[in-house]
C-alpha cells in the first residue's frame, strides 16, 4: 500500500467514496484487494447508515421472514 492509497481507503471506510471509485483509484483493484488493504490499514468496512432507512430494512425483514397470519 502506497502513502497515497491510505487517504482513499480512509475516505472509503468513512463512506465518502464508492467502492468503484476506490478500485479505480487503486489501479483497477478488485474488491478482494480492497478488503485486504483495509485489513492491513486497520480500517473498517463502510457501513450503510441505518438512520432514515429503518422502515426500508423492516420492510425487507417482513419480506424475508413473513409472519403467519392466524
Amino acid at each position, binding site marked *: 500500500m502506497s502513502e497515497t492509497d491510505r487517504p482513499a481507503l480512509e475516505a472509503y471506510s468513512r*463512506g465518502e467514496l*464508492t*467502492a*468503484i*471509485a476506490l*478500485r*479505480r483509484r487503486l489501479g*483497477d483493484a*478488485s*474488491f*478482494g*484487494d480492497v*478488503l*485486504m*488493504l*483495509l*485489513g*492491513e490499514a486497520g480500517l*473498517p*468496512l*463502510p*457501513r*450503510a447508515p*441505518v438512520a432514515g*432507512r429503518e422502515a*426500508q*430494512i423492516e*420492510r*425487507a*425483514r417482513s*419480506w*424475508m*421472514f413473513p409472519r403467519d397470519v392466524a
Partner: protein
Amino acid sequence: MSRDLKLFVVDTGPLITLAAARSLDYLLYISADLIIPDAVLHEATRDAARLGAEDIIDWVKAHREQIEIAATKAYERYDLARIAAPALRESDLGERAAVEVIEEPDRLRGAERGLLLCEETAVLRRVVVRDRERIVEISTLDFLRILEAEHRIQSAEQVFELAAEAGRSASRVEKLSANDHATRTAILDLVRQPQ
C-alpha cells in the same frame, strides 16, 4: 419453483465478503429465488487468486439448482470483445450487468418482490426503480442483521470480522496463475445458461 421473493446480488461485494467469511450459504437462508448477474459472478471469480474467488465458484457449482446466473448483453459483449483482447478489463462491467438485469421488464411479475443486495449503493444510484413498493435495496450488513434478528445466524458483525481477518491474512502470492485457464473455463460453464 419460482418464489414470490427475488434476491438479486447486484455487486461483487456481498459474494466476496461472505466467501471470505465462509458464509455464502447465508444467501440461501431465506425463501427467495437467488439471482446473480453473469458479469457480477465473473468479476468476483475471474482471478482464482483473488480473495474468495475459488470458494464462490465451488459454492455456485454446489448450489447450481438454487441460483440463477442471469445472462446479460453487457457480459456477452465483453466476452466477445475478449476474443480480440484476452486481457480486456472493464471495471464497471458487473455494475452495468446488474442494472440490465434489474431493469428487465419481466423480472418481477404479479405479486413478486425484489431485494437488491449490494455492498454499497453505487449500483442503485444508476437504477431507476420503477416500483419502490416492490423493490428494496439492502446492504450485506442489513441482510446479515436481519438474519441475526431472526436468530438464523449468531452475529452479523462476526461475519464482517471474519472477512476482514481473511483479507488480512490472505496470501497475495500469485500461486494460481497456472490454474487461470481452468478457472476461466469453470466460470464460462457457470455463466452460460443451458439452452
